[in-house]
């Protein structure tokens, strides 16, 4: 029964489902990587046959889970352009941004090779912990948030899913950031890239 339902699903929905699940894990890993919470707040798990961290605190887990699963309908429609994990200081000025740039081929209509997709996504989870050298040390009292960038703003009145998303208070950098790529993949129908954004040296507040 379950298998049947899956087969009936469009490849986009299927991809989005896998992607959202992956994002939840990846974002948790990023938060772990940045050491914003004590390491005791996480526990080791295995996902896609790679060692990952899982948040133990229910609130943290819920936040990440609800954020990414809230994106599901929009990813399915191909509305989401980027998902950012932004670390910012007390003045709401971002210090480091992890960007997942994603593109789901909306016209792809053959079956999704779940194994191939997972294999590619797995490489992100493996690459992430070794990319720590690229990241910046965070000051104390840092906060973080998950921000999604849409191709076009969803109509809040029409879909209930959009209501949970609010405009962010986080400030923007005034100059274009510098980018450090971490991982990219292109497997039909998903093209996913993870890269870091840091304020450029000419940024006034940095």
């Amino acid at each position, binding site marked *: 029964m379950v298998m049947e339902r899956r087969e009936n699903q469009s490849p986009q929905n299927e991809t989005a489902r896998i992607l959202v699940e992956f994002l939840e894990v990846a974002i948790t890993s990023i938060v772990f990587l940045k050491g914003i919470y004590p390491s005791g707040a996480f526990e080791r798990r295995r996902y896609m046959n790679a060692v990952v961290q899982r948040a133990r605190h229910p609130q943290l887990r819920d936040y990440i889970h609800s954020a990414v699963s809230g994106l599901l309908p929009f990813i399915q429609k191909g509305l989401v352009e980027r998902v950012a994990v932004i670390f910012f200081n007390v003045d709401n000025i971002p210090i480091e941004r992890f960007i997942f740039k994603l593109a789901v081929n909306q016209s792809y209509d053959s079956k999704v090779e779940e194994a191939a997709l997972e294999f590619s996504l797995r490489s992100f989870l493996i690459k992430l912990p070794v990319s720590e050298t690229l990241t910046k040390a965070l000051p104390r009292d840092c906060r973080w948030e998950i921000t999604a960038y849409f191709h076009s703003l969803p109509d809040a009145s029409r879909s209930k899913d959009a209501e949970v998303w609010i405009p*962010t208070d986080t400030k923007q950098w005034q100059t274009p950031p510098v980018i450090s*790529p971490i991982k990219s993949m*292109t497997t039909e129908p998903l093209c996913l890239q993870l*890269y870091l954004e840091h304020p450029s040296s000419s940024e006034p507040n940095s």
Partner: protein
Amino acid sequence: MSLNSSRSANSGERSKRSLNSTSSNPSNNSGKKRKTGNQKTLGMAWGSNSRSSSRSSFRNSPFSDFGSYMVEKNRKLQNQFDAGASSSSHSALSSGKPIFHGVSVFVDGFTIPSSQELRGYMMRHGGHFENYFSRHRVTHIICSNLPDSKIKNLRSFSGGLPVVKPTWVLDSVAANKLLSWIPYQLDQLANETRNQPKLSAFFALKSIPVFEDAVTHTTYPLVPETEDSVFKGGTSKDAVSSEGGQYLEYTRQSSGEIDDHQCENTNETIIEKPFSNDEKSSEIKMEEQSFSNQEEECSIKNELQSSPHRPSASVSSYYLDNARKESSSTTVVGCSNKGHSTLEDPNFVENYFKYSRLHFIGTWRNRYQKRFPRLSNEFKHTSSDLNASGVSQKNVIIHMDMDCFFVSVVIRNNPELQDKPVAVCHSNNPKGTAEISSANYPARDYGVKAGIFVRDAKALCPHLVIFPYNFEAYEEAVSCDEAFLEVMDSKEGDPELLASIIRKEIFETTGCTASAGIAGNLLMARLATRSAKPNGQCYIPVDKVDDYLHQLPIKALPGIGHVLEEKLRRRKVHTCGQLRMISKESLQRDFGTKTGDMLWNYCRGVDNRVVGVIQESKSIGAEVNWGVRFNDLKDSRHFLVNLCKEVTLRLKGCGVQGRTFTLKMKKRRKDAGEPAKYMGCGDCENLSHSMTVPLATDDVDVIQRIATQLFGFFHIDVKDIRGIGLQVSRLENADTAKQGHQRISIRSWLTSAPATNEELCKTSCLVRKERAVADGEKQSTDISLGQLSNDSKRPSLQMSPSSSNNEAPLNQVSELPALCDLDMGVLESLPPELLSEINDMYAGKLSDFIRKRKGKNENVSGTMCTTSYEIYEGAINNGKQLHCSIVPIRKTPVENKVEKTLDREIATENSLLQSSEVEKVKQYKIDEIQEVSVSGAVSLNVVDPASALEKSDLMPSSLSQVDISVLQQLPKEMWVDILEQLPVHRKPEHSSSAALDPLIANAQESLCFKHTENNSKSVDSVLGNNLWIGNPPQWVDKFKVSNCLLLNILAEMYYRSGSTGCLSSILQCTLSKFLLPLDASSDGWDETISSLCDLLKQYIKIKIESDIEEIYVCFRLLKRFTMKSKLFLEAYNVVFPYLQASAGENYGGSLQLSHAKE
């Protein structure tokens, strides 16, 4: 909120009464009479006070609840109103669209005239009258007075709708057009200090389109009438008699009226403006490209219509420069009746710049340069000569400056004001906070000076006469208000004498006075003018400079503004003498090298600038900091679009295109209140974002897209935006850029699916058209071909239609290009979503096509290619007859059959249809055949040249279809032959490799998606992303045969690294295997670098969007190469900016290639 709830039950009765009142007064058609009848209306209550009682009384009624009762009641009232309207709206017939079309009013409380009368007006002039307030139906709320509570809570009261005084309705009726309601807004609200909430409350989104709509519709119908009255006069009766008596009468009446008004206007014009003549005005028009004709025309009508009715007609007539060119009357006076913020005025940007003094001054130089390009060039030339010949020569510089220029022009036109205090300002409102921009000397004696508010000026000098700007007159008068002249001491006699001659001449020609400063350099001349004013001249010889400067306040020096002055004051520096005490080093340390240098020089009277050197402007842009208020994203978008238009016009006006776009934003500080200056920007944070595109552009669409993208970077509340500016820098001359190609390739960069898609369609149409034109040229030969092919027993339909049908292109334009016409390279480089869209357009055939073609491409053996070359070659050498014999060989039997049957079909249709239509049908069928042949017979699509042969004609019908890379690989004689065979407009030169240029240009125009670096002459780079196409990619073979060792190694590494096509693995492999220095061979250095650069650039282009990691790895590796190899270093340096530009394009940032931690 219970705005929708009931009033008392007598409303039905009242509306009946109003019906009576209108019918009893049918003569009141013109609506000009202002009735102040007995007010017995009770006013419309808002509250829900009767709710409970009514609810109880309806309990037994057939209505299930209160809501349904109200719905029913509203419906009935509506019907009554409509019935009344249809019986009483005569005037609506006469002017096409009635005045109040789209306006729906709700009257609140006691009004004069009464709500019933207002209702009557609305009824007669096409408006609507709502008895109950509804946010969805009502567009304007009319009332004379509001209780305090409602003012305090305006939004909930008005639902964001405009609250207007009833005189608005009366005046609109009197003016016979829908006036802007802004001047009529309720005093209580207009005087309110909290501007922003009020304004935003007023401009609910929906009221804007209504307003716009109404204005345009009310102005247009008058156009024919005006013409009638002018040209036909009395004969109009005959012309429109069929339209019915009433209409006729009104037309005559109104046209007569308008005729009169027009005469009046022109008369006034003649009296008031003796200076303006036709020639001048047309000249100005040509320069002022920024205002579209249509708009102008429209507003002239507007003006004709409205100005005579305005109470201030006598004043406004002054501004009516000339009925033809002037388009500003309504808006200049607009301080009283035109929208001022971005919210209310849909053409805000345009109007803003139309009436901006700074803009006028700022753009003057561009106009001037355009007008006298030769002059300035010559001047430049001579001045550079001067520099070369003798710096030591002692020159004198004269600085001429018009005295209070803006006012002088006014006074010139109004000699009676000669000795009265006069000022020029936007607004004449005595309470206003508009800034005086210029005041004459009598006014200055009162303390009125530039920059102070009108209300202060009025306080200082109550009889001050204030005029608005009159830019046309300024242009006529002198075109600019200051100039520098460099006079060589040796040639002319006394520079003072010369200056006085010039001043005299200026006065005689323009009627305005000028002052002159004479000194050894620009700085001193300008300072001298300062002391010379008004109407005098001053000479500062070199030996007096020190004395002059000693007591001069530093503020007087150009380049010292408030900030710098304040900084210096803190150091106790007030005069130039004190400034001189500070050492240059200290100045440079404190103020930066440039500013420090400037200060040091200026306070010593040193100025090394040269007269007449026209600086190329480094950036062009437009900025609006006044009146910028937005309610939501839509407003700001609209504003941005208009700003982009303005910037585009300026770019075009200067004939340049830019690469870097900077969007500046003024954001209200959190704690900043409403600024003192009305609608000013107040205390703001300045933010900016910029973006660089690889190709310069002045295309409005592209700029709009970029601006929108940039706008997206600021995540700020649009309500806090107080100013927006768009600046374009990295300017390039527009002529050097190839317009067509450039425009489209930039678009492909900014990938927004629908737009690009549209572009693609256009492009393909273009290709088609080109082909069709070429076909037309080939007509005669093709006909013979067609015959020949008949001989060879092949029904060659392809020939005949394309050769004989000149209408074909028209039919084809809307069709999709045949699949085989699509270029694989282009398709491959398209983003997947775009591809899928195109695929849909082809009903899914495209993906099949691509798949098969790809597969085929891989299987193609070298021999296959050579055979097709051979065939091709043979065809060319042996003349066209051979083509026919090739065809049957290469077409599959299946396809032939299809064609035959189709042919038969066509033949039968032939007998039925007209010949031209048959041709269309044929064309269509052939397209079908092509599609069939492509999807059915894949073997035909071998490689590019072969596919070119595949098209309906044997020869590609134009160069655009030829694959240049293939052509290039052919022996030179052969491609020369091919070029000769193909219909091109220009005959290419045979000798040099540059011969390919026209061909390439052609190809690009049609293929359009091949992005190239700007102005690059190199054939390789122009070839787009061909290098990475194929398996192995083309570059491998190309590099293999190269005579450069390095390139050979790279080609070899391709295979050694496992033929993955991944540049990073190739580089990795190269790095690990070759430790020896790579620059061994020095010959062909440049060529090697350019090949390498092309390889890298094309790779970036392919990968940047989907795989930044790969690019990143490649460049990190390349960086390691650069340490070993100068060649790589050079190539790296060439490509690096391109890389960063591409990264900026796709990711809005630059790639970080080095990390501090390493």
